[in-house]
């Protein structure tokens, strides 16, 4: 039974497809990519001496097999690819594949840059990839913690504190029990504890969540720093000397060239991080828990009217997030060097937050963001060994600049869950 009214309604909707004018978001981004790509082609191309080759080593051994590319041609070529994707967006193509197009633009820009930097030198690609993943693990877990909380409507700025507490508990209890596994569990509990404090104060006591996150970071810094000075420092042997996880070679897969050493020779925490991303990602879209989590994060009152316990969902998610971030902290101690150092999370929690936002609050997006930022970090240390003219400090800025561009709407649209940060109070 469709009355004339309905027909008219749908007509109105069809008629008025967004009147944004010519400068849509994808056109604006296209223009940016075009300019940046041309810049890369000209500047990186000209800065590269003609005739030099850039060697990208594919083997784990120095001087092993690799790709020898004529640096200048490729610097210009990749720059042009970036410019072309920009031009395509500007011309109105690929609007439906905006994410992929953006990825192509970014990757080709980076490659153009690398050709210039590596010209006359060699860059161990496998080593770079290994480092990228290694450095990304705490970021992946941290931003995953953020995903869990924020998709259910609780902002988590305390990731930094959760990582730090996790790292500390991992080192301390790992040392006492002389077991990396105990360290891992303790780290998760430590992070979960900060998550629980966050949950109670935000959900029960309605404290502003950003304020709370900032203060909890200070609190975690204080407590771990205090205990470090009091116990760990005077007695490193007993309290700050945990065993570390060995790299697990997955049979057969680990022997695949290039991919094997990067993906299948890692510690348990790295595997755990990847598995968790997959699990959370599937669970969010495909399970009852996921549907309810998203409902609570978008429209808690609607969820409440359907009998969903809003606060309970939030408690559970924030505390689970804490556990996961705690594991991310363990990656810094029992997952790598072992020893804890004061304030060793060193801003990683905020990069994780950046990855979360850059990845638009989705687990896979957060994974990609974390990998991107891990890559920037890895590249930075590699380039400084190549005596690059680009100061390594500018590469460390990349994650932050990328995030600012993302929230400024220059790289696609960013929309947080609608109820993110709003405490739920029954009226």
């Amino acid at each position, binding site marked *: 039974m469709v009355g004339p009214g309905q027909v008219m309604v749908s007509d109105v909707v069809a008629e008025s497809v967004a009147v944004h004018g010519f400068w849509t978001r994808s056109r604006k981004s296209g223009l940016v990519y075009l300019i940046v790509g041309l810049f890369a082609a000209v500047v990186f191309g000209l800065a590269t001496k003609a005739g030099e080759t850039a060697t990208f080593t594919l083997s784990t051994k120095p001087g092993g097999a690799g790709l020898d590319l004529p640096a200048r041609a490729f610097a210009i070529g990749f720059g042009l690819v970036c410019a072309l994707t920009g031009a395509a967006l500007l011309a109105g193509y690929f609007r439906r594949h905006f994410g992929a197009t953006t990825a192509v633009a970014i990757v080709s820009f980076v490659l153009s840059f690398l050709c210039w930097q590596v010209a006359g030198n060699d860059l161990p690609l496998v080593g770079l990839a290994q480092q990228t993943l290694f450095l990304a693990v705490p970021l992946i877990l941290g931003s995953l913690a953020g995903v869990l909380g924020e998709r259910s409507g609780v*902002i988590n*700025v305390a990731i930094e504190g959760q990582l730090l507490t996790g790292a500390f508990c991992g080192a301390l209890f790992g040392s006492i029990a002389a077991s990396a596994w105990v360290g891992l569990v303790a780290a998760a509990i430590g992070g979960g504890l900060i998550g629980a404090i966050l949950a109670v*104060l935000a959900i029960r*006591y*309605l*404290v*502003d*969540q*950003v*304020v*709370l996150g*900032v*203060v*909890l*970071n*200070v*609190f975690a*810094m*204080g*407590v771990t*720093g*205090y*205990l*470090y*000075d*009091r*116990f760990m420092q005077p007695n490193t042997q007993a309290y700050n000397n945990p065993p570390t996880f060995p790299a697990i070679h997955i049979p057969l897969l680990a022997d695949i060239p290039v991919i094997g050493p990067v993906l299948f020779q890692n510690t348990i925490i790295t595997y755990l991080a990847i598995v968790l991303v997959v699990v959370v990602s599937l669970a969010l879209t495909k399970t009852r828990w996921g549907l309810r989590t998203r409902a609570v994060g978008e429209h808690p009152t609607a969820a409440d009217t359907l009998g969903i316990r809003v606060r309970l969902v939030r408690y559970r998610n924030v505390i689970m997030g804490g556990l996961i971030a705690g594991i991310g902290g363990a990656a810094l101690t029992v997952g790598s060097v072992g020893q804890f150092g004061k304030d060793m999370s060193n*801003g990683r929690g*905020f*990069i994780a*937050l*950046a990855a979360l*936002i850059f990845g638009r609050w989705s687990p896979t997006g957060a994974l990609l963001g974390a990998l991107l930022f891990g890559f920037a970090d890895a590249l930075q240390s590699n380039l400084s060994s190549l005596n690059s003219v680009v*100061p390594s*400090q*500018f590469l*460390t*800025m990349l994650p*932050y*600049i990328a*995030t*600012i561009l993302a*929230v*400024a*709407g*220059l790289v696609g649209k960013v*929309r*947080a869950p*609608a*109820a*993110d*940060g*709003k*405490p739920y109070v029954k*009226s």
Partner: protein
Amino acid sequence: MSSDEERPGGGPADPDGGAPGTGTETATAPAKRSGPRAAVPGDAKRTRTGIVIDALTTANTFTVTVLAIVLALAVGAVVIALSDQAVLDSMKYFFARPGDTFAAAGHAIGTAYAALFTGSIVDPETLNEAWWGMTSWSSVLSPISETLTYAAPLIGTGLAVALAFRAGMFNIGAQGQAMMGAIGAGLVGFMVPWPPVIGVIAALLGGLVGGGLWGLLAGWLKAKFGAHEVITTIMLNYIAAPSFVTWLVTQHGVQQPGRNDPISKAVEPNAQLPHLFGSGLRANLAIILVVGAALVVSWLLRRSTLGFEFRAVGSNPNAARTAGISLNRTYLLVMLFAGVLAGLGGASIVLGNTPNAITPSVVGSIGFDGITVALLGRGRPVGTVLAGLLFGALQAGAGQMQVTSQVPIEVSTIIQSLIVIFVAAPALVRAIFRLRAQRVGALGQNLAKGWNG
């Protein structure tokens, strides 16, 4: 669209955090204004003391603040006791002689908090010695001087956060703004061989400009692109330090000659802030400057048209916009001013404290501490000054505590964060002390807008 659900019908969102009307705003403002409100109107029979007692036992702003400090110190005491070796040793035979444990705990807490006091306010022994002429009076002033030295930059960044709070913005970027302020002041301070007086002024201006521009950048991103200031300022913090500053101070012409670590040249003596109590004590002009800044901010918020706009935007941006107030202009100006204030905090360190040079860690964590200062000060200029003095005293005293009773300096960080947690969660304090409920404005609650707001 997002914030209207939070405020049905325009009820009073926050009776204490709001506008003081055209009335006065003084140091005791929270207590004064809550007092009459606690009393039931029309209940004329109540005695004056009755009203006072009522005001104190009802969880008003003033009471909650005091109790929050008490609670935090109590938790700090437990932490100190539980990490004391003598206490831990006596706990091994706790059930045999529990008194030992309590005695040891009492001793540990007593010495620690005594040191906290003597390190930040006054040491009675030194006072006694000075009285009898055995030591100079300046050593009596030493703890106070330390407190003021620590407090000054905190007040600067605290004001930067507080001002933004009042305009409905959460400036987490005081850290980066202070860093840029330190850089601006440092660069101006050592690049030119300044004459006296002018040097100080020029270097300070350099600091204000550095911080102001960094703040303005966040304001511009918000005004132009709608980028949430919490996210952009966090990112700008990390761009400023360690990335940018580390690069800067390792550049030729900036780096201190003969050094390999990241440290700049020292600021010209003529551009350094003069000491207040003679050269033996660290306290310098910075504290006067930040108190002056607090007075300016206070005037700005209460008595100026700009401040009226800031507060209107902070309380109800929709109504402000409808009344013809430009939101974008407010975002730009507020973040500019906030940056200038944080820049003052950063500059005061480089120009006031040895080694008077820019390093990646020169501003410490004053930006993040500034957030706690502003929260404790409830976004009010005078409150911020008092909170800054308190936290300055905590930090100064913690140094003394570490020397005399080996309590790690981080205890001040713990106490500081706990105070703010308790202040931000008045319901928690109320529950602990079983106070009667009153709608206490927890600062930040009307800020809870989420990323989209």
